[in-house]
């Protein structure tokens, strides 16, 4: 392995990339802050989600379910199910990060799509760690700043529907889904999941169609992994 030292050129490159990703996610946090406030969460609850949950798709899911009239528990369950992929990211990162307990407890909060993508596929462990922490810190800072600005900007809106805010969450989910649809199987699963959710919707409480879909896709995945 290339050694623990990193050239200053590599270091600058990693930090520049981390800032770029931080700025991009900060822009997308603006829409999270806005959607969350419009969904009926308070400014403090919106900021708490970005500070404490800190995983975008789960946050959008929770406020999306609440905004559509579902219970916060259905939203919380959906958020946790969406967060399950972070456990797999953690597994990929475990061999790269410091094994000491306190470092691991701190690092866990930063285990998200962006930090995983930046940390894996590096030339050395030292470079992976730098990429993980630089990306984690940049995204955390700008994600929370973006959330606060987005929430403040929409806090005082009289009728959010006039501004089309009810059409914003599906577009946000679509932008999160699109990169995962690069093969035929996920495409078929996405279509199937959409149809199943709509078929269940008139008959069960709000938010529950999502949980039915989650159970069905888990059964599908387990059956497929045997075959």
């Amino acid at each position, binding site marked *: 392995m290339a050694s623990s030292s990193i050239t200053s050129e590599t270091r600058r490159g990693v930090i520049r990339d981390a800032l770029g990703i931080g700025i991009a996610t900060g822009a997308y946090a603006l829409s999270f802050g806005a959607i969350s406030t419009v969904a009926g969460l308070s400014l403090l609850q919106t900021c708490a989600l970005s500070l404490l949950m800190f995983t975008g798709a789960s946050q959008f899911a929770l406020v999306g*379910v609440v905004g559509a009239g579902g219970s916060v528990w259905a939203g919380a369950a959906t958020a946790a199910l969406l967060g399950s992929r972070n456990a797999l990211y953690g597994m990929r990162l475990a061999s790269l990060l410091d094994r000491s307990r306190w470092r691991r407890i701190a*690092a*866990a909060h930063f285990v998200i799509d962006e930090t995983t993508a930046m940390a894996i596929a590096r030339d050395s462990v030292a470079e992976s760690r730098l990429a993980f922490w630089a990306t984690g810190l940049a995204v955390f800072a700008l994600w929370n700043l973006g959330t606060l600005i987005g929430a403040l900007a929409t806090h005082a809106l009289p009728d959010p529907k006039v501004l089309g805010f009810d059409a914003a*969450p599906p577009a946000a989910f679509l932008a999160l*889904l699109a990169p995962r649809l690069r093969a035929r199987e996920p495409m078929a699963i996405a279509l199937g999941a959409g149809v199943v959710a709509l078929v269940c*919707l008139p008959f069960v409480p709000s938010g529950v169609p999502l949980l039915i879909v989650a159970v069905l896709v888990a059964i599908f995945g387990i059956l497929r992994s045997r075959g």
Partner: protein
Amino acid sequence: MMWTGVLVACASCYVLKLAGLSLPASVLQDARVQRTVPLVPVALLAALIATQTFSTGHHLVVDVRTTALIVAIGMVLLRAPFLVVVASAAATAALLRLL
């Protein structure tokens, strides 16, 4: 109630992250886990898009949000940034309601 739900959801998401870093690799390397977990976000995000575009309460509806979603799909295909995708969908719905 809202606060409790928010905090429980935050704790659950953190525990999942920590579990990935802490559990023995054999648990998460199980073929069923590896096969199933990546499918969950695909199914849930698609179900969220469907229910939040085509329903109001417990009724299935087709309204301006459908057009907004079509615009968003076009923006994603054009590789527009996240904020542009979201803003163009909201703007479409707002404009159609003005007409």
